[in-house]
């Protein structure tokens, strides 16, 4: 229970209207049963219903709330939209959920191409405001509906990262409430109120926010962020259609998608390299055949009708390269880039396909929600930002591993995942997505998830999710040898009571310890619960 004294203090901070311990309201914040990583063992075993919900309006309120939590040993979880499924919800009993949606401050600076957002602002809002002013932002794979801040500190990758660079490079300033209530300002916000670039006087604590990806809110609460926007071409992207067939009509003289059928996997990869070297394009990716079926189907039933006719042979011979061209400077740029692209792919035996000149996905939407349509259960098991070769071969290995777990995973005929080029070909990105029927037994899906981490370790694939979404004592010693020790030391320093989203960063370790069907897979060493430092908020659940 949340102590009565704390309840009074919370009410005095935000007012009665924005704080509740009503169990009905709290039930509305349940993580599952549907959602990202939901319906799996992790969600079923780890996720708890919060005991109280509080909705602050400003940073000073967040600081006051966190201070009360520290005073009364109340575990808490920051929450912006809740789309990140299981991991964005409390994992321990008696937790306070700090719902940040009322913090929806927004400023945009056209002259310096940046926006300052609070956690309640989502990507599609930011994108529209930017487009209206001749700029644009990269909408992360999480979709138009996710909090900009939450996405930027957890991943933030999109096909636009080819031209834009990775998300962490576009964070110009951050205001963060540390677990004990202290205020930390990073980047140029550390110097003054005017964010203009990403650097501050140092020391640089941006690692608290994220490495390859973030720590699910367990190192504090970001209350404000300044983000770089990019200049766009001058013509409007016109929305058209009625739901569910809505899209943005592209001005083809300035913005164009080009689909190219390549003869084989190697030529596709080579084309991606060459496009990067030529420094053309705004997004470059390989599209799984699976997604084409999703795009063509008007319903789940139609998808399965299309997909069930596919075969391993066809999947292995389907190599579709999709390139977005944007003529930022002039219409001549479009002509130039089209010619260069044609030269590259023709030389490699590619053939341009008829391509619909609308965008449903990558400017305002990122239809991530549609990933649940086919089976009801979905997660991106892994994503990787390394060299293109590395990214591509990881997808191949994952496809091999996946065969052993199909079913319960959806049959995908050996599909090697989705890969794309980042930062003009200087990096490769691979994302491996899995789908399952949540109405079936999902224990093997949990096992696949863990086996994918082991495969990464065996093959030395560096992946973004090796930390927050896998057991720390498995991945920590394997990558950097002692990074888990450093991480835990930092956690102890900044959050000595482990009240900020416990038991992260040991959440997955705890899951493996407690799930019977996972125990046979545990072949790594770690301190037992008794030896491992277990903090009060975690202990109540593990004892």
């Amino acid at each position, binding site marked *: 229970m949340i102590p009565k004294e704390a309840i009074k203090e919370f009410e005095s901070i935000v007012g009665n209207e924005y704080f509740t311990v009503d169990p009905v*309201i709290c039930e509305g*914040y349940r993580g599952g049963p549907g959602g990202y990583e939901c319906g799996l063992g992790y969600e079923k075993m780890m996720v708890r219903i919060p005991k109280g919900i509080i909705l602050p309006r400003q940073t000073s309120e967040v600081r006051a709330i966190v201070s009360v939590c520290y005073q009364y040993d109340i575990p808490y979880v920051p929450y912006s939209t809740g789309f990140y499924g299981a991991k964005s919800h409390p994992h321990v009993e008696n937790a306070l959920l700090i719902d940040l949606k009322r913090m929806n401050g927004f400023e945009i600076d056209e002259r310096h191409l940046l926006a300052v957002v609070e956690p309640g602002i989502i990507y599609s809002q930011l994108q529209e405001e930017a487009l209206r002013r001749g700029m644009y932002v990269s909408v992360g794979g999480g979709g138009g*509906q996710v909090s900009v801040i939450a996405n930027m500190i957890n991943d933030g990758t999109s096909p636009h990262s080819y031209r834009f660079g990775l998300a962490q490079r576009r964070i110009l300033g951050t205001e963060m409430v540390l677990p004990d209530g202290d205020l930390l300002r990073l980047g140029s916000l550390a110097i003054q109120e005017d964010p203009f670039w990403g650097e501050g006087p140092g020391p640089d604590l941006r690692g608290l926010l994220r490495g390859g990806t973030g720590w699910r809110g367990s190192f504090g609460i970001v209350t404000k962020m300044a983000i770089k926007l990019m200049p766009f071409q001058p013509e409007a992207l016109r929305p058209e259609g*009625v739901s569910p067939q809505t899209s943005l009509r592209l001005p083809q003289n300035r913005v164009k998608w080009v689909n190219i059928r390549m003869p084989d996997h190697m030529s596709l990869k080579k084309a991606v390299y060459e496009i990067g070297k030529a420094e053309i394009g705004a997004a470059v990716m390989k599209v799984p055949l699976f997604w084409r079926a999703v795009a063509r189907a008007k*319903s789940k039933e139609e998808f399965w009708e299309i997909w069930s006719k596919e075969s391993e042979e066809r999947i292995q011979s389907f190599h579709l390269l999709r390139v977005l061209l944007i003529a930022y400077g002039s219409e001549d740029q479009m002509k130039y880039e089209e010619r260069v692209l044609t030269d590259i792919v023709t030389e490699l035996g590619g053939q341009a396909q008829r391509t619909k000149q609308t965008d*449903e996905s990558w400017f305002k939407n990122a239809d991530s929600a549609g990933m*649940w349509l086919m089976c009801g259960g979905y997660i991106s098991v892994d994503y990787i930002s390394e060299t293109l070769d590395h990214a591509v071969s990881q997808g191949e290995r994952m496809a091999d591993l996946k065969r052993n777990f199909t079913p319960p995973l959806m049959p995908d005929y050996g599909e090697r995942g989705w890969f794309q080029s980042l930062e003009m070909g200087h990096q490769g990105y691979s994302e491996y997505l899995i789908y399952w*029927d949540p109405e079936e037994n999902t224990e093997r899906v949990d096992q696949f998830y863990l086996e994918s981490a082991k495969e990464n370790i065996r093959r030395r694939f560096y992946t973004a999710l090796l930390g927050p979404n896998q057991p720390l004592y498995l991945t920590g010693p394997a990558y950097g040898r002692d990074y888990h020790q450093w991480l835990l030391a930092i956690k102890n320093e900044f959050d000595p009571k482990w009240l900020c989203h416990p038991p992260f960063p040991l959440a997955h370790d705890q899951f493996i310890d407690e799930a019977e069907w996972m125990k046979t897979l545990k072949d790594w060493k770690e301190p037992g619960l008794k030896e491992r430092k277990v903090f009060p908020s975690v202990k109540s659940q593990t004892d």
Partner: protein
Amino acid sequence: MAQKQFDFDITRIDHFLYDMRGCIKCKGCMWVDHIYMPGIRFSTRCPSATRYFFDSFGAYGKMRIGLAYIEKRLPPSDTLRHIFYVCTLCGACDVGCKRNLDLEIGLSLEALRVKLVRDGVGPMPAHQKKADEIFLCHNVFGYPHKKRGAWIPQKISPTKGAKTLYFAGCYGSYIHTEVSRATVKILEASGTPFQMMDDEWCCGNLLFSVGMIEEAKRQAERNLSIVRESGATTLLTSCAECYRMWKVDYPKILHLSTSELGFEVKHLTEFVHEAISEGRIKFSIPFEGKLAYHDSCSLSRLSEPWISWSGERQQWGILQPPLSRRRGTCGVYQSPREILNLIPGIHWAELHRKKENGFCCGAGRGTEDAFPDFAMWAAEQRLEEVVAIGAEGIISACPRCKSNFLRAVKKNQQELQVFDISEIILASIGGVKKERSGDRRH
């Protein structure tokens, strides 16, 4: 796990568990379709989630709370009842969900209300009072039944046995009689003989919407049998909520498809649109004004025909036989717009949130009856949008919307004009100019 032989009967809450469990908190039910996202302002389409902030008031919260209630993990309470009724059932969540996921969120919410009533938890006391008035006086206001037809202009006489039957509804009969009067004058101007029921009763919208399914069914059976016996081939309404009841919810309650009703259900805007194309109506009198068009939920995203379905759910959730989903795609969006495009003199504009992304006025489906402050708030939100686009007033195609907008205009002493589209049509065909109300009254 296959779900053997089921249908979308809203008296069977167990038929909706799959849909309720499937919610992924993408909140597509709350946000405007991201393709149409207008920016920071006017970015949501769910009134209750917008007004009450907590996730529990969005469909994503209601699905979780509903499951907990069904599974007896949550006992009934005032909060629980409040959450399920302080909701306009406007269909925004349903079409939002079906943008990506095809879950039957709207039907789940209706089924939950039916369950609450059957469990003795619902409806709200104010709803019960209204229901009693319907039983006693056959209208939602408790006004004398004998005065129901008093609005009919003396010079206009319904024609027994005519192919078109006009159903005026409670709002058209008692509150916004200018809408009904305009409608019959438009019918007359187009040379369309029409009949009316000898003894018109409420359509039962409130009963159905709050979950009083047995009572709504009796109302549906009674009304339906009268129309079937009348020989009419078209049932015409000028109220969007009556329209939805007749076209969608009567078949739903009675396990029919809309096509099996035995007659066609038309809204005035559809009728006028057709009459224009056939040359039976022409607009000649300019109607000056800079006005915004508001999509009434029951005419737009909620109005697609009901198709009775039964079958089974197979692995991956596949329905067999495949179901033609009602996603709000084919709502009545174009007819009113094309009518307005043809009215001389008028400068009408789209609101930021339009068509399937429209923001409900807040009045319908029992909301205003039990939660007048919330309904007022929703109307105020919509009128803010009207002001933001620089319009001087608002047009809707439902007297219920008109009524609620007028309340908000009066409360805030705004200069905004509020019209039903029937008034504009009538004025422009040279009906009765003095009936141009541009109401700021009430």
